[in-house]
Structure formats: C-alpha cells, structure tokens
C-alpha cells in the first residue's frame, strides 16, 4: 500500500465563493477512486488544481511523497506523470487524429527537420490499440463520433504513460458498450499499479468500477466510502447520495398521472418523413409526458428539431390542438406554441453573460411592449413571477446567468418559454449534466406543467429517467418509432431489447 497522492487542507476561493474548504485525503497506488458530488461541490476545481490549470489558495499536494507545486498542465503531465481526460474534448477538429495525440511533442517526430507522418501515424495507431480503437489516424478529428473522440482522448492521455489518470465526466456522452471498454482499460491500469480518479454523474458507473468513493459537498470532504462488494449495494448507494445531497433522499420521481387524465391531443404527427425520419406518427395529449428513447443518434433529437422547424420536413402532417399550421422555421413553430429546448443549454438557450431578467424575458418580450417600448414594470413583474414559480435560486434578477448552477440555468430556460405560453414543450435531454437534486426538481416542474395542460415530448437517454419519468415511451431506431410502452408495463430487459431490435 503505497501512497501516491496526498492532499492536505487544500483550499480555493473564487470571487464570492469558497469552492474548496481545507480538503484532506490521500490516494494509494493501484486503486480506482470515484470522486462524486453535486454540481458546484468542487470536483472540477480539485481536478483543475491537480492539473495546474488553477492554483490553490492554501494547502499542499504531495505526489509520490514529494511536495508538488503544479503551475501548468505540462508540468502536471511530465514532471508528476498525471493526466486528465475531460468531458469537453480537447481535440483540435482540423488536425489529424495522429497529430492530436502527439500535439505537444510533434518535434520528436522530425526527420530531416520535417514531421515524419509515417512514424507519427504508426505510433498513433499503437496508442489507439490500447483503447481498442482501429481507425484511420490520418483523418481529421472532426470526422469521428463523440464515442470515438472520447477514446482518442483516452489514448492520448495513455500515450504519455501517466502514473495518475483522472477521468473527468469522460463517460457522460458515451454509449454503454463504450463505457464498458473504458472500464476495461481502467481495470488494466489498476492492475499495473496506476492510480485512477473517476468522476461521473452516473452513480451506477461509479459503483461498478471504483474501489473507494470520495464524496465532496459544498467544497468539503464529506467522507470516503469503501465500495465493498460484500455490502449491500443499495445501502452504499443510499449512503453516498445522502452524503452528496446532505439529506437521505435518492432520486425521486413524480407520480405518473398522465394516462389517467386523458386530455385533448396537443401534438399529433402523421407519417412525418425527412432525410432522417421514416413515417413517424405519434400523439401527445395534454397532461402527458411522452419520452423518445433508444440508442443515441437514432433520430430522437432530429425528430424534435423537425417538429420545431429547425430541420426540414419532407412529407407528413403535424397538428397542434387539431390545427395544421405550416411550420417552415423556428419562428413559425414558436408562433404556434411549439417550443424546443435544446440539450446544448449553454450554447443554444442562454445568453450566459447576461442577467436572469433578460434571459427569461427575451422570448416573449413583445407581449409586454407598448408602441415598441418595453413596459419595464410589467416585464419585471412577469420575470419575477417566473423566478418564484420555478423557485430559481438567484440573489436578484440582475445576476449573470453564468454564475448560476446548472439546475437553475435550466429553470431559467423553462421560465423563458413558459412566459411565452407554450402549447407543447419539446425537450432534449432536460437533465443533462445536472446533479441529483436539480434533476428531481426538473422532473417535478415538467410534471407540474403537464398537469396544467402543457405536455412534454422529451428525448431521454438515462435509463432511470426513461423508466420512471414519462407516462408513455416511444423507442426509436434508425429514424423510426419501433415500439411503444405505457406506464406500469415497463420491463427493463424488454425495453433494452427494443433498443437493439
């Protein structure tokens, strides 16, 4: 049992917040550690300090028994043999895969002063073999899928032979089969005596692969739990979630009330076809939450985007409350009460550098104008109403949205569209990247809205959500709806079967 990393009363302040409060723990060689906590608990900050991207305000880091002063990523990588695979890809889209893998040491491949592409590509192939990927390394990184990019990232980190490897939400965008490949790689590294830190929002993954689980909450170390296979997994899970949230609650879902209510048909699709969709027909009734499920990229998001006028529809009929409006653009969709909420929340839904007021008010601002001027007090009142109705935690309407947590950001997005009085919400992965507490709040909000007559058609990927949130479930495969499930009859095995066909 040799100690690899020791962290001693590490602290970090950002303007107005202390994100790490005297955190102390030590990690041994040949073990996989899970690092969990809700958003804002300090996980990412801790990783960034270890990688030399941020500097700590107090405390010490010891690596291999020696005091480490890590000022920049290259130092973390080459002096302390520590590497991180981040969720946001650090691949340069225009450069080839091989160049990406060895980007910071291309000069080691010089032959007569020029980069020897042959050798570079051979080395890159060898590096990719370690993660079980066989691709054309001369192609630019942009040509590859998210799954492949993640594995390329992993290969890039492994090629530097790290003693300590941190996986920061790396598995978040991955298919479960690829996640298993990643676990295989992790277990192999563990056997070779490396230290691994695994960060994931999907707790099942953490329980599956980690030896010990470090729990952070509000910048404090809450504890380190031994993930002993002898123990009851449910009780470990409960303990960890309890420590993460500070309460004993797990993920709670609202009651499925949709099928009982039998409301009017809010959205109906008849044989909708496009480049990516084959004869899609479906109905969403008021009071319902309907989910589109399936493997990633089977046309779920594209279906939502087509209904919302963001992608062209070739044929078929879309009805809103019995009428068939012409929807050729997002503007048409919005005028007809169809609102699409993108899964790329920060890029496509929010003005991150502007305040809560503007972000909520913007979509429906023309409702509160007179002679082209905004009626300020009415606008403010409307926004305040949304903030309190959705319980958005913000010190004031003037708070910059960037400073809000993920859950509150998503509520701001919902608030923006609710003010515009939607007839149906199309939501793409509404809880992506949110912590347990925020997820539950979003579920209850969506359920509350559907009870009030604003139904939701949502793309869901997380199995727990797929099973527990919607009243009805439509499984898509290759642009087609292949199976429907309605509430209680759900059998997880049958569901997964339908994914693969």
């Amino acid at each position, binding site marked *: 049992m040799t100690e690899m990393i020791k962290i001693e009363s590490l602290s970090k302040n950002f303007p107005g917040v202390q994100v790490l409060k005297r955190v102390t723990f030590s990690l041994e060689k040949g073990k996989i550690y899970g690092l969990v906590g809700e958003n804002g608990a300090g996980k990412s900050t801790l990783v960034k300090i270890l990688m030399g*991207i941020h500097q700590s305000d107090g405390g010490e880091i010891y690596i291999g028994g020696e005091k480490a002063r890590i000022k920049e*990523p*290259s130092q973390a*990588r080459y002096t302390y043999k520590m590497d991180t695979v*981040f969720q946001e*890809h*650090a*691949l*340069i*889209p*225009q*450069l080839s895969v091989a*160049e*990406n893998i060895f*980007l*910071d040491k*291309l*000069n080691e491949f*010089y032959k007569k*002063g*020029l*980069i020897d592409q042959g050798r570079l590509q051979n080395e890159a192939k060898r590096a990719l073999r370690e993660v079980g990927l066989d691709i054309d390394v001369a192609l630019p990184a942009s040509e590859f899928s998210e799954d492949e990019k993640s594995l390329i990232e992993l290969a*890039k980190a492994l090629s530097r032979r790290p003693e300590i490897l941190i996986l920061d939400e790396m598995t978040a965008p991955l298919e479960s089969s690829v996640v298993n490949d990643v676990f295989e790689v992790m277990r192999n590294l563990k056997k070779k005596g490396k230290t691994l830190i695994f960060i994931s929002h999907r707790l099942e993954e953490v329980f599956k692969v980690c030896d010990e689980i470090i729990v952070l909450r509000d910048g404090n170390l809450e504890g380190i739990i031994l993930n002993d296979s002898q123990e009851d997994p449910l009780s470990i899970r409960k303990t960890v979630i309890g420590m993460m949230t500070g309460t004993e609650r797990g993920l709670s879902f609202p009651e499925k009330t949709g099928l009982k209510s039998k409301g009017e048909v809010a959205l109906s699709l008849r044989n909708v076809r496009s480049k990516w969709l084959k004869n899609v027909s479906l109905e969403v009734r008021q009071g319902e939450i309907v989910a589109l499920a399936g493997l990633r990229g089977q046309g779920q998001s594209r279906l939502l985007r087509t209904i919302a006028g963001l992608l062209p529809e070739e044929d078929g009929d879309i009805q809103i409350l019995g009428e068939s409006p012409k929807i050729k653009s997002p503007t048409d969709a919005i005028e007809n009460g169809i609102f699409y909420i993108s899964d790329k929340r920060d890029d496509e839904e929010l003005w991150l550098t502007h305040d809560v007021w503007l972000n909520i008010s913007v979509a429906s601002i023309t409702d509160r104008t007179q002679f082209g001027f905004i009626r300020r007090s009415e606008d403010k009142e409307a926004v305040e109403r949304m903030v309190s109705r959705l319980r958005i935690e913000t010190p004031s309407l003037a708070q910059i949205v960037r400073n809000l947590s993920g859950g509150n950001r998503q509520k701001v997005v919902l608030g923006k569209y609710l003010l515009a009085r939607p007839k149906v919400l199309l939501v793409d992965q509404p809880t992506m990247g949110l912590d347990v507490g925020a997820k539950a709040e979003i579920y209850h909000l969506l359920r509350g809205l559907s009870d009030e007559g604003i139904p939701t058609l949502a793309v869901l990927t997380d199995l727990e959500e797929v099973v527990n949130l919607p009243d009805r479930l439509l499984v898509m495969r290759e642009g087609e709806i292949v199976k429907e499930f309605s509430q209680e009859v759900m059998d997880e095995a049958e569901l997964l079967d339908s994914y693969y066909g």
Partner: protein
Amino acid sequence: MANDRLKKIVFDWYIYIVLVAFWIVSCTVSPFFRTMSTFSIIFVSAVPIALVGLGQTFVVLSRGFDLSVGVVASLATAIASVTMHWGIGPSIGLILLVSCAIGVINGLGVSKLKIDSFIMTLGMMFFLNGVTLLIRPSPGGFIPVNFKRALLYQVGEFPLIPVLILLLAAIVGILVLQKRKLGREIYAVGGDPESAKMSGVDVDRTRIKVFVVSAVSSACAGLFVSARIGSGNAEVGAPYLFDSFTAVFMGGTLVTGGVGGYKGTIASALIIASIGHILQFLGITIWYHFIVKGLLLAGVAGLQLFFVRRERT
C-alpha cells in the same frame, strides 16, 4: 467514388483552377496577354503580395489579424533608402531586426496583454506610419543598383529571381505549416485555443511567433518593393494590407482560424497581380482596381463558402 475524388480535387485546387482559367481566357481574348513580358510583370508584382500574404496566412490561421503588414513593408523601404549606403548587408540586417522587434511587440500585446489582434496591430499601424514618415517624409533616398539588379534578375525575359522568391515562399510557407511543429500548433491555436492549451501547446509563444513571421515576411516584401521602385516611400506599402487579406481569404483560409493554408494564398496573389496588370494594361484608372478587387474577394470567397456549406449539410 470517382465522382467524390474529383469533387475533392476540385475543392482542394479550386483557386488554381480559377487562376489557370483566368489566364487561358485572357490569353485567348487578348494577343497582348500572350507574351512573356506580361507574365514577367505578373510574377514580379505577385512577389510582394505573396510575401505579405505569407505572414498574414500564419496570423489568420492562428485566429488573428495583422493590420501592420503594409506599413511594415513601407518602413522597410524607408529604412533601406536611408541605410543602404552603409552597405546592403548591414541594411538588410537592420531591417530584419527591426521587423522582428515589431513582431515580438505585436505578439506580446496580443498574447500577454490579451489585446485583440485587430486593435493591437491597428495601433501598431498608426505608430509605424508616423515613424516611417519621420524617416522618409517624401519618396526618395538611395537604393544601390546591384541590389535592384540582383532581386529583379532576369534570364532573357524570364524573371528568374522573383520566380525563385515565389517558389521559396511557397516551399517555406507550405512546409512550415504542414510539416513543422510550429505549423501544426498554429492550426491548433486557431482551431480551438482552449483545447490547444489543454493539450500542452504554448499558445502565447505560438501567437508571438506568428506575428514575428508576419512582420519579417512583410519586411521582405518591403525590401523587394524598394528594389522595384528604386527608392523609399512611406506610402508604398499601404495597398499591400488589402492585398494580403484578399489573398488569404480568396485562397480559402477562413477568418475564424484553423482552416486553410498558404497554397491558396500564393495562387490568389498571382490572380490579384494578373488582374492588376490587365486593368493597368487596359488603361483603366486605379480606382476601378479597388472596385474589381472588392467584387472579386466577395465573389470568390462567397462561392467557396457556398461549396463548403453544401459539403457540410
């Protein structure tokens, strides 16, 4: 499959196809165009455009702008015209040193002080314009005949040295960008500066190097111009600023950085020089040159973006 390959070839060599088509049409239409002396003039006038374009390509690829390329060329002619009487070597040495310093200052401002490159080089442009006018308030000065003869050396009507300079610029530009660490890092920085940093690229140092390349290649353009006009002139470099951007963007390098290369820039430099020559030959006043260049830039770049967009959807 064959169709796809053809499409790719057309896409990759698009600007060369435009260049050759342009030459063929001009040669067919006008007997005067079909002469060696025409091509000689085109190659000679393309040299400074290709040189300022070289630096500008590096800067734009790294997601920046360099508005000081024209004035650096002017400054080089001014310094040459007052120092060449010491000897050609020391004068060239001084000019390269000064341009290096300018590049480093631009680069430091952009990387360390985080001043937007547009603003930083705009400031540099005004500053150097003043300095150049102080050195050379009116055109004139001394440029040795040897220097002029050497840079413009012709074999018969074939402009040997100017063509060699073009080839050298092409080889250096393409090899450095495609086959050297610096080049690949420039694409990385331009493609995604955050990712480049995470991957261990020294983004600041890359930015500084890019501006040094730009200033030095602009100074070389200035040296060539001083040989051509046989004097120093504080205003002579100004049009090369527009030409550098026209060559870079017409050549397919994207304003957003990370995409493109010098291959397109140098062909565009030849197109710009050819058009300039034709218009001059037809006796059309200089003002129309700007109008034609403006239309050309928008037209060619627009057409190319149209193709790119079609490729992507």
